[in-house]
């Protein structure tokens, strides 16, 4: 049984339909890249997977023992966070909130998990630092460590390299790849089609033409060829 399966999914706001009849599935260990132009519904799809909004039609089912709150989410940074007084440690620890339940305070096991994930992301020396004083790449590592506190099963990454310099970008991709090798299933929304093609195992292309399949199939598909061509033209 797949970890996550979307059947006849129709997405949109209010009554405005953005994507129709979307079908795809994610198996354990997959690295799915969701690509498409701006406004094609990538963010809406992500919000639907996370349960932040309901689909207009169709359904998403979770399998293989995956629970709804076991998808670790790496959001794009929002306005509020720019001047929020919070230390790196506090933010990473907040990834354990799903484990809190009715408990008001974090246990030492939660704190140990937060520390472990900070070490894994190489940010333990920043733990007392303020979130808005660290670099963009470091911020992403902090949010990734937080997501890892929430789950070790599936990560959903929303444009994880947006705003990073080339070195930060490649470090981020390496980090994600190493997590995948440890068995974490990755869903990534990306603009960066080159990275998608070098790291992903599956591609979901949404927009006027919808495609879902393995990376190899995508390269030979009509949607894939067209998208790659348009990207090349953009680059020139």
């Amino acid at each position, binding site marked *: 049984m797949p970890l996550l399966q979307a059947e006849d999914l129709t997405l949109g706001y209010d009554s405005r339909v953005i994507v129709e009849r979307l079908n795809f599935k994610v198996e354990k260990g997959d690295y799915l890249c969701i690509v498409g132009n701006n406004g094609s519904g990538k963010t809406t799809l992500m919000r639907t997977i996370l349960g932040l909004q309901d689909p207009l039609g169709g359904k998403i089912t979770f399998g293989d023992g995956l629970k709804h709150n076991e998808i670790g*989410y790496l959001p794009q940074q929002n306005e509020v966070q720019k001047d929020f007084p*919070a230390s790196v440690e506090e933010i990473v620890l907040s990834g354990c909130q799903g484990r809190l339940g009715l408990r008001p305070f974090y246990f030492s096991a939660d704190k140990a998990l937060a520390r472990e994930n900070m070490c894994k992301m190489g940010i333990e020396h920043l733990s007392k630092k303020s979130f808005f004083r660290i670099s963009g790449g470091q911020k992403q590592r902090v949010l990734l460590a937080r997501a890892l506190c929430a789950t070790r099963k599936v990560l959903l990454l929303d444009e994880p390299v947006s705003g990073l310099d080339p070195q930060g970008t490649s470090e981020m991709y390496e980090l994600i790849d190493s997590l995948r090798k440890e068995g974490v299933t990755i869903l990534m929304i990306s603009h960066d089609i080159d990275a998608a093609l070098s790291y992903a195992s599956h591609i979901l292309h949404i927009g006027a033409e919808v495609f879902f399949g393995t990376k190899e199939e995508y390269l030979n598909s009509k949607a894939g060829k067209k998208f790659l061509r348009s990207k090349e033209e953009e680059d020139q």
Partner: protein
Amino acid sequence: MIDKLYNYLQYPFVQRALIVGVLIALCSSLLGVTLVLKRFSFIGDGLSHVAFGAMCVATVVGVSNNMLIILPVTILSAIFLLRGGKKVKIRGDAAIAMISVASMAFGYLIMSVYSTSANLTGDVCTTLFGSMSILTLSIKSVWICFVLSIIVVILFVLFYNKFFAVTFDEDFAVSAGTNAEKYNLLLAVIIAVIIVLAMNLCGSLLVSALIIFPALSAMRIFHSFKAVTIFSAVLSVICALSGMIISILLGPPVGSTIVAVDTVAFFICYIIGALLKRT
């Protein structure tokens, strides 16, 4: 001067007033950060105007205790505004503006038509800027303030981690299984309670200052949520205490004195923050 203060402190009603003042200042500072960063400050402002309207009604109706009317009305408005504001952002803003000006207007209207008081302007001024002295609070009000403040502090401590999570990143909180809507509702209710409490200290127009100044001051110097929360609570208590003492000794109105002290403290923190940044 010190003798005079010592003399005053002998009186139980002075002691009570100081204790309640300190508790109110403590409560109002706790949620400052959340309020500022969640862009809830406009809700706080709107609510204080609603509370003004409710207080006018309460004065005219002549219930034994004003809080009996003001508290439920303000809490209900908080829930309503939060629910309404969530669906469509702009309409939410407009709703708040509408409700707050309407309740101000109706409050003053009702007061001026039905009030039997000889000193209408004085009454209205008291509701807007707080009483001349917190010493005039009745024993019943003192007790209500005392109990409510303790409840607010306990709730804040119990839900500290949840409030942090929901304020910092609501989407992530929901994805991790936290019921953000529930906590937002709880926040709205607590904010309403704090506003009603703080009105006793400094009137409905100055309430926002009591809530927001300590948090903004603390954010100049500290950069972790815990440090900001603790420092703003301490600062708020110190400012309220010095404001009340100045007011008792020298006689200026208590609310505006406290807010003036808060403002001075903000500028001091601003300068310290700027100096720290340089080094």
